[in-house]
């Protein structure tokens, strides 16, 4: 609502002119099983607006754009509102399986005696809630949580604690500078709470972070020797993002000014325990399809789930054996210079509302390309469960 209303407000067409609403959302709350449709109605887009929610974990916000892009390409729609939203602060506490079974027995019991006997089966452990969020961030196939997969990727590509902390400190510095220079003025909308509080910037930014200060933090996932800390990981936050996708027809009809063109997209999958390498697996074939090399891409948004994972991806592209055997290249793909990567910081500072991030990095890539006068860019993210998504964007 908070970002959709101002976006629709500044359009020259009415909110009901859209053909479709697609929203990426991972943790759908029980009150709103199809948040895309709820958002469409609450945004005043009319009862006739079809809307569906997509979920591919951390890639959901990009999947909504991708699905919209393909729908328009197929000629099935002209104007689509595609977004991503996540309210991780609303993730439920869930009861354990044992407790659920006990409730079912209690409600199923017909006689007083039966009920009493069920009641006697009550165990204190039933009251210990399971944090839904924690379960959601753990891969069920390997039973590794996301932080652990980052530890593994970092380990496999020799990412040191110092590397990760330096990367994180630089990310924070870039975000703070971008906020200070007003680079988000046309991208981030203030959120107005009912109590009057105005949230006008992401408050996860820690501009005073240095590699030295971050070095003092304890590992968050694998104590005592782990390298992934709260400081060099993305923050778990709430957030939402929308982009408008239009066909050429719609652009002409509504006299729109396009910001960028989606050239192509790619999804890829790999072993869940090294899901952090997802960007490498999806971006590489995308480049190859268009006869491009890493150097041809002037700007990268590679979602910062974990510093170790981002650095792992960079290292993977410079690894002869990996590029040859895993990606089918002749040898190492090359190096992405830091000045082309996540130029205004990323999820380490602004946070990673899982369903929204994929959408946000595409939007930010477009805005950053425009600002810096760049022609070609890729937004890509790793996806819990062992996948990756990438989108190739060109300026108009």
């Amino acid at each position, binding site marked *: 609502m908070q970002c959709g209303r101002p976006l629709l*407000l500044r359009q020259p067409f009415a909110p009901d002119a859209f053909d479709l609403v697609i929203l990426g959302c991972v943790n759908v709350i029980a009150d709103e099983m199809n948040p895309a449709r709820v958002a469409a109605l609450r945004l005043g887009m009319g009862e006739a607006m079809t809307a569906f929610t997509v979920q591919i974990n951390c890639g959901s916000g990009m999947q909504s754009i991708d699905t919209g892009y393909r729908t328009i390409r197929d000629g099935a729609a002209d104007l689509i509102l595609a977004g991503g939203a996540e309210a991780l602060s609303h993730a439920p506490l869930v009861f354990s399986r044992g407790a659920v079974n006990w409730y079912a027995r209690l409600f199923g019991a017909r006689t007083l005696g039966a009920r009493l006997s069920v009641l006697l089966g009550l165990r204190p452990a039933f009251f210990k809630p399971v944090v839904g969020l924690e379960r959601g961030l753990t891969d069920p196939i390997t039973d590794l949580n996301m932080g652990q997969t980052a530890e593994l990727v970092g380990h496999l590509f020799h990412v040191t604690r110092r590397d990760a902390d330096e990367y994180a400190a630089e990310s924070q510095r870039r975000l703070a500078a971008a906020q200070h220079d007003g680079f988000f003025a046309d991208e981030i909308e203030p959120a107005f709470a*009912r109590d009057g509080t105005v949230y*006008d910037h992401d408050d996860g930014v820690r501009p005073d972070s240095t590699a030295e200060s971050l070095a003092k933090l304890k590992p968050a996932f694998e104590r005592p020797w782990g390298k992934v800390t709260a400081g060099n990981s993305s923050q778990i936050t709430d957030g939402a993002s929308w982009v408008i996708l239009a066909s050429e027809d719609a652009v002409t009809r509504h006299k729109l000014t396009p910001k960028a063109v989606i050239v192509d997209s790619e999804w890829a999958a790999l072993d869940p325990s090294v899901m952090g390498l997802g960007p490498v697996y999806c971006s590489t074939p995308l480049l190859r399809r268009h006869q491009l090399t890493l150097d041809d891409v002037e700007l990268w948004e590679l979602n910062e789930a974990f510093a170790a994972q981002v650095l792992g991806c960079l290292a993977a592209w410079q690894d002869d054996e990996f590029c040859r055997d895993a990606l089918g290249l002749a040898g190492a793909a090359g190096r992405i210079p830091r000045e082309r990567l996540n130029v205004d910081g990323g999820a380490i500072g602004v946070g990673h509302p899982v369903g929204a991030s994929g959408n946000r990095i595409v939007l930010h890539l477009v805005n950053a390309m425009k600002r810096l006068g760049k022609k070609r860019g890729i937004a890509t993210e790793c996806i819990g469960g062992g996948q990756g998504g990438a989108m190739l964007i060109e300026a108009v």
Partner: protein
Amino acid sequence: MTSTPARKPALAILGKRNRELGPFARDDARQESGPWAHWRMRTDEDGIVWLVFDRKDSSANTLSEPVLAELNDILGRLERDGPRGVVIRSAKPGGFIAGADIAQFRGVTDVAELEMLLSRGHAVLDRLDRLPAVTVAVIHGYCLGGGLELALACDCRIAVDDARFGFPEVLLGLHPGLGGTVRLPRLINPLAAMTMMLTGRTERARRARRLRLIDAVTQERHVRAAVRAAVNGDLRRSKQDVTGTLLNSGPARRLLARRMASEAAKRAPRAHYPAPYALIDLWVEHGGDAEAMQQAEIASFAKLLVGGTAQNLVRVFFLRENLKKLAGGEWPGRHVHVIGAGTMGGDIAAWCAWQGLFVTLADTNRNAIGGAITRAAELYGKIGRDNRLRVRDALDRLIPDLRGDGADNADLVIEAVPENLDLKRKIFAAVEPRMKPAAILASNTSSIPLEALRENLARPQRLVGIHFFNPVSRMQLVEVVGQDLAAPDVLAEARAFLGRIDRLPAPVKSAPGFLVNRALTPYLLEALVMLDAGMKKEAIDKAAKNFGMPMGPIELADEVGLDVCLHVADTLRGSLHRDMPEAPQWLKDKVAKGELGKKSGKGLYDWKDGRAVKSHEDVVPAADAADRLILPMLDACVTCLREGVVADEAVLDGAMIFATGFAPFRGGPLHYARTRGFADIHATLERLAAQYGPRFAPDPGWDSLPDPTPAAAAL
């Protein structure tokens, strides 16, 4: 892809099929059947008679002599035919029955004739009550006054979800007069019954069910089954419980009556509002004897209706109808853009969103918008306590707009920034080119002439003043200010917009202070003069309250804000050729110190928890205090009439009542003057002028006012 044509919402097509009218087709209530003008009758396949009330040539059902005469005729037929069950239902979309036709109350003077009329009505309802068939009232929407009395005469009441029940007679200076005072305290808890009748409050279906006023709450789709159950005796009917019966006993009645009377006195003094006390007396004396109570109700109602209070309040009812009519037809717009998120702008935006409009609230200060959203959420929390969805939707429609993008597509732009000509001009210059050519530009200014704002506008004909009062959600009146270049359709649209958001438009000419502030200012200034002369502020306020004002002038000045008062007074003094008392220096000092009244916690009074702290000692206002306060206000009203600031007495009286709360039971300032006698007012003003100064000199307009005017008296 080709764009599909705009689709009609599903319920816009299907909604009309929802109403369950038994043997009558659901979507066509106009089918012919029976010889009556206002009623239609048919029997369904279960042998249940459906009696549909559809008052001819009226959008709402009200009870009148001919309507009841027809019902009487129908009851005769039902007595002969002897059906198992009879359903009474309204064919009007708005509700069941809105009450008695108030038009027939106007100008009634003959008590004996009135008692005859009432007795005939009672006889019809008693006949309905005695009918051997199971009688079922099926109620949707409003069910008020006489409508509720008719429902009470049925055996059974089934409500549809949206039904609302109430006895608003007390607001007209009356109490129920068709047996309601007899039947209600015997059906439900008498304490709840008396509360309903004393406050005039309406109760929603769920609460009415809890009160045992109705027997079932359901949806249209189950009305048929509910009626069948009621007629077959399968529906358990609500009955008074033991507590209720006990509370209706003599000693309990006497004890409770004392409490009720003292409660009533807090809100409506006996001298001004006799109805609540008459109702309490009725119950205490006759609560144990239905027949005697019925006779007493008729006599008491007749006595109240011919009295001054009821007649004046009936007048006020029609003054409101008159203002409503000025709103005219439907406003075609849906998007309002409000500039300035201060108290007025924020509250105007919140109110518009609450009333279903799409609202963008523009301000460059994001914290100001944040504050406005908070106030909106608080307001909605109060007025939408029972409607979570409406609160959510209203907050969704109230859109913070930091870039002012809303102006591009708005149908109406309302400026509500601080009273500074340059600032307003700058805003107009920026916003006008962005607006749709057919959109209206409005200013909420209270003191800047529209003619000054109009300069440099490309489309001055689309500029109008829409002047709200504080607090927007409670002050029903809004001044619509014209200027000589304004197009008539723009003024009409502005009035229609106010009708759309449930406010009353008062058209006024662009003149200093318009009508309301101009009339209030001498009243407030005189209070300050009296304060200066050493009178106690509590005494001054009491004089005004004794006259019937809802709040004394000192408290009002604090409520409005001393800075605002001072500003308005200075502007008026500067632009009117009229002797006005100078605002005392200490007041200016107070304002400079930031002691602004309620909003700063300290003004003329100290304020605690939103209330003025008053001394409790008994104060006796000077004998001429009320005249000193009220007559300058009346005089300013006459000036406004003479100068054509306001078109006629009906608009003037209505505006003053609904903007300032001017003693409603006096029927409005001009009506009061007329009742007291122009000669007396004139003489008193001259006497005050001789004693206190030329500011009391009567306006020449008094001489040219027709006294009395039959045309104006009709309203």
